[in-house]
C-alpha cells in the first residue's frame, strides 16, 4: 500500500486535482522527480527502536489530500529548478510525513495548518489550496511567508508556513543533495591540522606561536606516546 501511495501521490500531482479546478501547475510533470527514500534503516538500533520505527512506517496519519498539500508546499519552498534539486527530488514529503508521525507535537499544527490554508483558499479563491491556480497559491504564500506581517487573521497561516519551511529545509539539508548544496565537507576520516592559512588571512587572524607549539604534530601522531617523569611528552 505504501508503494502505491507514492504512485498515487505522483499521479495526483500530475493530474488536475478536482473537476472544474485548475491543474496542479506548480507540480507539473517536468518538476516531479521523486527520489526513493530508504525503506529500511540499519544503524545500531535496539529492538525497541526497531519496533517503534516499524510502527511509524506502518501508520497512516495524513490523508492523500493532506500529503499532496504538503508536497505542493515543499515544492514552493524549495523548488526543483536548481542544479542540486529541490524538495521533491530529495524525497520530501515522505520525510515530513515520517517526522510528523514521529513527533507527536507536530501532528496537530500540520493538520490544522493545512485545514486553515484550505479554508483561507476557499474564502479567497473558491477552492482548496491545491485546487487553485499557481499564481493564486503563490499569492497566498506571499501573505503568510513573512513573520513580520502583523495581520491577526494571517497569524495561523504564518505560523504554519514557518513550520513547513523549517521541515522542508531540514529535510532537504539532511539528504545527499542538501549536503552537496551546502558544500559540507565533513563526516570523513581525516587529520585536522588547523584552519587553512588563506582562511586565517581572510579573517585577519593567526595562531599564536606559543599556542601552536603545544598542539599536536600530525606527522608524529602514529608514534606511541611516551613521557619523562616531569610530564613532558618525549615522542
Amino acid at each position, binding site marked *: 500500500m505504501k508503494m502505491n501511495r507514492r504512485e498515487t501521490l505522483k499521479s495526483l500531482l500530475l493530474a488536475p486535482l478536482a473537476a472544474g479546478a485548475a491543474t496542479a501547475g506548480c507540480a507539473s510533470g517536468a518538476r516531479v522527480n521523486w527520489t526513493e527514500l530508504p525503506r529500511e534503516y540499519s544503524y545500531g538500533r535496539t529492538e525497541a527502536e526497531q519496533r517503534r520505527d516499524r510502527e511509524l512506517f506502518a501508520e497512516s496519519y495524513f490523508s492523500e489530500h493532506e500529503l499532496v498539500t504538503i508536497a505542493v508546499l515543499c515544492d514552493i519552498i524549495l523548488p526543483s529548478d536548481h542544479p542540486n534539486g529541490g524538495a521533491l527530488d530529495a524525497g520530501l514529503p515522505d520525510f515530513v510525513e515520517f517526522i510528523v508521525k514521529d513527533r507527536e507535537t507536530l501532528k496537530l499544527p500540520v493538520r490544522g495548518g493545512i485545514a486553515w490554508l484550505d479554508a483561507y483558499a476557499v474564502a479567497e479563491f473558491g477552492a482548496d489550496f491545491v485546487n487553485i491556480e499557481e499564481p493564486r497559491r503563490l499569492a497566498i504564500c506571499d501573505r503568510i511567508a513573512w513573520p513580520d506581517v502583523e495581520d491577526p487573521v494571517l497569524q495561523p497561516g504564518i505560523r504554519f508556513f514557518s513550520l513547513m519551511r523549517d521541515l522542508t*529545509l531540514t529535510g532537504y539539508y539532511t539528504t545527499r543533495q542538501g549536503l552537496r548544496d551546502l558544500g559540507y565537507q565533513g*563526516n*570523513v576520516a581525516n587529520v585536522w591540522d588547523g584552519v587553512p592559512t588563506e582562511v586565517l588571512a581572510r579573517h585577519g587572524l593567526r595562531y599564536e606561536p606559543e*599556542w601552536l607549539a603545544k598542539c599536536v604534530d600530525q606527522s*608524529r601522531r602514529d608514534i606511541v606516546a611516551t613521557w619523562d617523569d616531569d610530564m613532558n611528552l618525549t615522542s
Partner: protein
Amino acid sequence: MSSNEQYDAIVVGSGAGGGMATWRLAQAGLRVALVEAGPWYDPADDSQRTQFRYPWESPRRGASTRLRPFGDFNACIGGWELDGEPFTTAEGTDFMWWRARMLGGRTNHWGRISLRFGPLDFKRRDIDGLGDNWPIGYEDVKPYYDKVDKLVGVFGTNEGLPNDPDGFFLPPPKPRLHELYYIRGARSAGVPVYPARKSILTKRINDERGVCVYCRQCDRACSLHADFSSSTVLIYPAVASGRVDVYTNTMVRKVDTSPDGSATGVSCIDRGNRRELRINGRSVVLAASACSTARILLNSISARHGSGLGNSSGHVGRYLHDSTGASRAAFLPELMDRDIYNEDGVGGMHVYTPWWLEGANLDFARGYHLEIGGGMSMPSYGFGFAANQYKAFLGERVGGYGNGLRDDIRRFYGSRLSIACRGESVPQYGNYCELDPNVVDEWGIPVLRFDYRWTEQEINQARHMQDTMEELLEASGGVLLGDKPGPERQYGLTQPGEIIHEVGTTRMGDDPATSVTNRYGQLHDAGNVFVADAGTFVSQADKNPTWTILALAWRTSDYIVEQMRQRNL
C-alpha cells in the same frame, strides 16, 4: 539459579568506575564477575555502529526520541525515562536522571572532558566553610590520575595552574576558527583560555587502539576506539585476560549478606528471561552510578542492616548533588559567508576556560568552567530551522520561500558561537534520594524518590554565568541570541540531574556517623563491599567527574587487592 563460581569480586555496573575496577582487579589476577543491566556493546561492530552515518541513514535524520534523547545517532542506550523503570520525585523537585543500559554505561556518550580535581577541590570547607572536606587530598589521588592519563590517554597542556593540575597529556588539536574568535574575545575581557582536556587520542598510545580521525562524533562512540569508553579501553582488555565473566542484561536487586553482616554475593534478575540469578563472591564493588548504587544499598535490607546495607549512618542517598549548568549562544557576523572546509575536529570543543576567579569576592562560593561550541557541524534534524532569522540583525526581512533560502542557509552556516557553563554546587544533607515505598519497577525492585532543590548559592552562580557568557560572546564579536533568563527562570540554571554529574550519595569520610564509606570506598558497615562510582564524592568540583571516578576506582581496586593479599577480605 546460582553462579557455580565464587568470584573474588563482583563488580556491579560497567561505566567508568565499574570498568576500571574490572580492569584493575582482573589485571591483579582476581576472578571477576561484571554485572551490567544492558546489552554487550562495541561501536566497532558494524551492526551497532552509528559513527560516520549520514543524516539520511536515519528516517528522522538524527532527531531525538524518547528512546534516544541525545539524537538518533547518539551511542547511549538509555535515557531520561526508561520503560518499566520509573522513579518518583517529592513535591517541588524537578530532578532529571539519565540512566544508561549498555556495556560501558554513560561513558558511551559523555563529552570526554577529562579534568583532574585540584588541591582546593578536596578541601572546600576549609576555604568557604560550606559542606565538608574530603578525607583525602589531591596528593592521595595524584598518583592515580597520573596512571589514568597514561593508560587511557588524554590531550591537554601543562599550564601550571594551581587548581587545574598538569598531567601526562597528549598534544591538543589546533583551535577552529570560531574558537580563535573566542580566544581573542575572552582575552580582551581578561578571561583566560586554554586548550581543552579530553580523553581522545590525538596520538597513538598503544597498538590496540586507533588514533583520532577527527569526525567530531565522540558522542556516537568511536569504532576506532580512539576515545575513552569504559568498554573499549577497560572491559575488552579485562575480558581478554580470561579472568572476567560479563553478565549482561542482568539487573542487580540487592547485595546478599551473611548473618555477620558481610556480603556473600548479589541477587539479580536476568532481563531476558525474568529469571532470578544469584552470583556469589568474596567481595562486591558497586559502580552502578551514584543513585543506582544508593538504591541497591537501600534495597539490601537484612536483620543486620535494617535500614539498608551501609546505611547505619542514615547517609545513603544524602548529599546527592549535580553540576550546575547554563548556556547562551550568539551570531558572529564575521563568520557569515565563510569558506567551507572540513572543520569537524574532535568531538566538542578544542579550547576551554577553567574557573578563573578563585578567591574573588562573589555572592556565591563555588566556581564553574566554560565550554565553547560552534562551527560547521554536519546537518541533522533541526538544521535549517529559522533558517534566515539572523537577517533581522542585518536589517533584512526574515522569512520567504524559494531558491533564495539556499543562499541564506549557506550565508549563515557555521556562524554561531555558544558557551556552556558547568559549575560546582554546594552539597546539602537535605538533597537526597530514598526508596519510594509505594512504587516498584517491572522487576519488583522498589524505586528511588528524589528530593532536591537548588540553593541561593547555585542561583547566584547561574546569574554570574549569564553575565559572563553575555560579556564573552559580545567580546568575541557576537550578537546575542535569545533572551537572557532572569530570576523567574533561576537565570537559566539547569535542573538538578540534568548535567548527568550526580555524585555524593555514598560519600566517603573518616566518621562512620556522617559518611557511608571510608577513604578507600569501603563501606563502614561491611568490609567486603566497596563503592567505585561517584557516590563517594564528598563534593563535585567545577570539573567533570569522570577522571576522578577513574582515579578513585583504581585506588579502591588497589586497596581491595592489598586487603586480599593481607587476607583481610
